[in-house]
């Protein structure tokens, strides 16, 4: 029976000791420890969330990069195509122009040649005329030196005129 009768002294000291222990441990152990554990758990949670966010951002950035790259590629292709077209155009234009120029030159040359030819012909005609006059003069001078020959010439000339 003695075993299950609580002794007053021990109850008294247990109350005091327990309250003391509760107070001191709460103040100097449980609060700082639980605070530290909570703080750490929060910081780990935040860090994980932030890592997730960063990964998401990275993903976004990566897809952005992909998009930019794609756009850049398309732009490059377009530019190349444009350049190619311009080149073609320039070449064809140049060809056209060259052709025109050449034609013009040829035309001009032809005209010049024609002119020169006409000039030459005129010149030749004049010279032939002069020469003919000269010849005619000399022939006439000689022919007209005797009567006979004068008659002959007149005759032949007249014949000639008739032939014409």
């Amino acid at each position, binding site marked *: 029976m*003695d*075993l*299950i*009768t*609580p*002794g*007053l*002294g*021990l*109850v*008294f*000291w*247990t*109350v005091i*000791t*327990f309250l*003391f*222990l*509760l107070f*001191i*441990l*709460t103040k*100097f*152990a*449980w*609060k*700082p*420890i*639980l605070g*530290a*554990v909570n*703080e*750490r758990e929060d*910081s780990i949670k935040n860090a994980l969330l932030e890592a997730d966010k960063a990964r998401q951002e990275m993903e976004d950035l990566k897809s952005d990069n992909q998009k930019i790259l794609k756009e850049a590629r398309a732009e490059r292709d377009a530019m190349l195509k444009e350049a190619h077209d311009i080149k073609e155009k320039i070449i064809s234009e140049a060809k056209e122009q060259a052709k025109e120029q050449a034609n013009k030159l040829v035309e001009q040359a032809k005209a010049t040649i024609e002119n020169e030819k006409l000039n030459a012909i005129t010149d030749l005609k004049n010279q032939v005329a002069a020469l003919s006059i000269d010849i005619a003069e000399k022939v006439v001078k000689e022919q007209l030196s005797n009567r006979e020959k004068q008659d002959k010439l007149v005759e032949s000339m007249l014949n000639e005129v008739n032939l014409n």
Partner: protein
Amino acid sequence: MQINTLRIFLLALLCSVSFDAFASNEEDSSGEKFDPKAMIMHHVKDAHGFHLWDWNGHPVSISLPIILWTDNGLTTFMSSEFHHDFEGKHIVEKDGQKFVNYHEKIYQLKEGETTIAFDEEHHPINATQPLNFSITKNVFMMWVSVVVLLLIFVSTSRRYKKSENYVPKGIAKFTEPLIVFVRDEIAKPMIGEKKYKRFMPFLLTVFFFIWINNIFGLIPIINGANVSGNIAFTLTLAVFTFLITLFSGNKNYWKHIFWMPGVAVPMKIFLMPIEIVGMFVKPISLMIRLFANITAGHIIILSLMSLIFIFESIAVAPVSVGFSLFISIIEIVVTAIQAYIFTVLSALYFGMATEEDHH
């Protein structure tokens, strides 16, 4: 710095009790017949003095202060003044008052009496029992356990540094999982995420206080001070749980006790006394469970050891030692389990008291 203060406190505690080794003992007990029941009861119960071992027939013990509240006020003296007598034979006289120690109970003899006498029911007929606030073996061990707990947990709390992201180091690596266990496996599931924080200090303190006293009870050299197997100790802790439950009980809790919702009126009337009894039975079960489990463990080990002396044969010793080793190992598990159960049930009662109405 905190640690140093604690060390000084521990030293002061040790110095406050005088060490009287080789104190003389008048009677030689070798001729007496061995009484296992007396021996076991003597070991399981509290004592005014710390008997360590016998040396050449003389007991070696730490004497502890005896503090009595008599009709004349406070009386104090060291337990060594009884000269290891607990048969009520040695009389200590203080301020004209005579005290005897009879089976670790201090009696004050009435005027003119020289020896204590008992009637058939074992009540003293010529002595009274003064109020006894002595620093007994259990109180002393309880204080030692407090010092150890403070050393462990205050130094744990100093291991956390903000600059190191509160990463546990040193002793905190060992203690943090225990604290987190109490939080995550006891407080949170029993009380709930929202309200558990309020009860954490109490639950942690109770858990570690019971556990460490259970463990100290198993150490033979300090004579198995049976603190957590003493009904006064378990009673006090159970009363704390009871009071906290009462004071944190919300409207819903009281409604469930006095006017159970959701049942017919006759049933409500029928349930009310049951619920009221249940209110008291819960802490009483806490008290008895811890006391009985720890005391039973002590009794089993002591009984096994007693077998050697009952059979008076050394051949029994290996069996006794083997069995008590086996029981001791189980007891090591029991120390933690009982601390856990006490804490879990306390938390459960707090959870019931603070549960919100969800009908």
